[in-house]
């Protein structure tokens, strides 16, 4: 090292030593996105993993998807690579102020962000509102059904919103005697559901993204079906064996004649690595796989991804496979647009949801179809769906081909 570079290094280290030191970012930050319709609270749990600073995005007690955190001076960047999104903030002591950003085709989508060190206080759930509500979303002259579930969770009020094609994951928040507000931010979804009870009717607003607001009215669930059953949305050719031919992650063509599938009861999981509900469904599929594989059961994952180009999509599918240590066959089937997926599976009619689950008998024919997935946030609906899956698989396993 020559004299000049030593002097420069020395000066740099002196400068670094004399700069005021920021407390480390590690720990929990109570954060807010400021939407047009109100503030969306969530938490960022910052920790060190393998010498890297990462942040989990938490809705109450439920945390998901890590963001990689970088700091330069007072500037902090949370890079949410899965969704090509970032939070860029300026740090002033115990507060962060900045912007959440992702990019659509019409320009940047940005939402003001702020956070302070510490957790959000856990609110007492409003007892009068707990339970299941049959809701109608009202848009212009149309209405569409949802089931809203409000439950007392470990971290306050938890919520779930289920449509005909599944739920949006856990919402979290609190309320007063007769009103509630629960929210969800997972790096890409930006939702607030808020309402107030008047008489027997719950009225409120569902906020999505920066400025979409949908009014809803709801009454207590009676037990009569409010949503279309998941088995009635999509139908199929049940006469002929299910046919397909897609490439696996190594580029090999796999079809219905693959020896790993022949003569087995097969659960076909039509999924996307970008699909939050698919992430929620996978642990249950792993459990089914472990239980029934020894008796002749197999799972086939058909991945529909962001671009439809395997060179770009396969790394995303591998990431998904590695996250859950998925042991079954995963194929790259195409692009994640409902029309395109439907076109690639001509034996299905009315394809509408990711995930969609097909159950094939040992003869290869489609026997049952479930559109969407009711995740753990939906409680009893989730349990019932898994019960149905087990019943179907057990029945098909006992059939003689």
């Amino acid at each position, binding site marked *: 090292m020559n004299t000049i570079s030593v002097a420069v290094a020395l000066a740099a280290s002196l400068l670094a030593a004399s700069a005021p030191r920021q407390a480390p970012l590690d720990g929990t930050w109570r954060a807010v996105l*400021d*939407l*047009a*319709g*109100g*503030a969306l609270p969530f938490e960022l749990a910052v920790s060190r993993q393998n010498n890297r600073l990462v942040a989990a995005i938490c809705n109450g007690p439920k945390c998901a998807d890590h963001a990689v955190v970088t700091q330069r001076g007072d500037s902090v960047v949370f890079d949410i690579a899965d969704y090509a999104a970032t939070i860029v903030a300026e740090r002033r002591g115990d507060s962060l102020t900045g*912007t959440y950003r992702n*990019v*659509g*085709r*019409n*320009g*940047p*989508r*940005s939402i*003001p962000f702020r956070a302070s060190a510490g957790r959000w206080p856990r609110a007492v759930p409003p007892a009068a509102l707990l339970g299941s509500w049959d809701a109608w979303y009202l*848009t*212009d*002259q*149309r209405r569409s059904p949802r089931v809203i579930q409000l439950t007392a969770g470990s971290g306050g009020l938890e919520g779930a919103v289920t449509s005909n094609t599944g739920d*949006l994951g856990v919402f979290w928040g609190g309320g007063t005697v007769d009103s509630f507000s629960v929210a969800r931010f997972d790096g890409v*979804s930006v*939702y607030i559901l808020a309402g107030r009870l008047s008489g027997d009717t719950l009225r409120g*607003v*569902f906020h*999505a*993204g920066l*400025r*979409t*607001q949908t*009014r809803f009215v709801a009454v207590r669930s009676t037990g009569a079906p409010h949503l279309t059953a998941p088995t009635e949305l999509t139908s199929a050719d049940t006469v002929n064996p299910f046919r397909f031919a897609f490439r696996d992650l190594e580029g090999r063509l796999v079809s219905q004649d693959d020896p790993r599938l022949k003569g087995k009861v097969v659960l076909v999981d039509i999924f996307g690595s970008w699909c939050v509900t698919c992430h929620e469904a996978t642990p249950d599929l792993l459990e089914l796989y472990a239980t029934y594989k020894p008796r002749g059961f197999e799972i086939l994952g058909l991945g529909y991804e*962001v*671009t*439809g*180009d395997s*060179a770009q999509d396969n790394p995303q599918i591998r990431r998904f496979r590695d996250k859950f240590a998925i042991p079954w066959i995963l194929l790259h089937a*195409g*692009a*994640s*647009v409902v*029309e*395109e997926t*439907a*076109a*690639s599976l*001509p034996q299905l009619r009315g394809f509408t949801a990711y995930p969609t689950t097909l159950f094939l008998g040992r003869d290869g024919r489609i026997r049952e179809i479930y559109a969407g997935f009711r995740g753990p946030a939906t409680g009893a609906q989730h349990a019932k769906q898994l019960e149905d899956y087990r019943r179907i698989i057990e029945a098909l396993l006992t059939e003689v081909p």
Partner: protein
Amino acid sequence: MTISHGILLLGAVFAHGAWAQTPDAVRRERTEFAEWLATSAVSPWRAIVVRPIGPGLSLGPASADIPLAGIAAGRIGERGGRIVLSTGEREIGFSRGRVQTVEGWPLIVNGPPGRATLTVFGREPVRRKTVSHYPYDPKLVFVVTLRPAATAGTQALLTPDGVEAVASNAGTVQVSLGGPARTLQVKRLPGATADESELEIYFRDGTAGKGSYPAGRFVSLLPRADGSYILDFNRARNPFCAYNTVYPCPAPWSGNNLPVAVQAGERYEGGGLEVKLP
């Protein structure tokens, strides 16, 4: 939060009258949009071709429908709603609205099945004179009530970026711009995700062709927590055809011709349709 934010905003309006400065939020939106125009791979400034895919388009050599250096002879076509670019060595699937870069050329496919369009962007950033705005006028910020349309209805129309979409009649709003109250038609356009939509007004006013874009401008309704909306003409923005003549221009919406000049929002100084300005 939003109510108080809205009240603060309006309070500032009344306190400062016409001398109020551009609010931070509006300034920030403008800065970010200008930055996106200057730097994005899919900035409308960079677009070089927008073409209906129809029965298929050839790409690549000089004799192709769309000559693109570096791309071996390829053909883009629609099969059962799916858009595929086949070149000699590979097939590239397109997902609507998402960028695919092929040999350095950013490509986007948009539009409904059967009527998809391909937009090709240049390989290098393009610098143009950036967007400009009328001085911020706090008198042109309105709190409005959306009156539902008497009858439900949908129609195919062009979004700000010239893409065909199915819009529904969301209703009407009324504003006082001097003289009698004016009624404007509001349509609901698809948003960034299935849960989102945008309430938009495409309007022409007395400045059309004399400072603002001749075909009209878009302005979004911004919801407030109490169910009303903010209609801020300072946020009126040009359709993409104002930035680049390759984009198709949305036809004016009937009923949205304002006989008064709305001197707020984005200006037009040429660059799209080359119209003479006084």
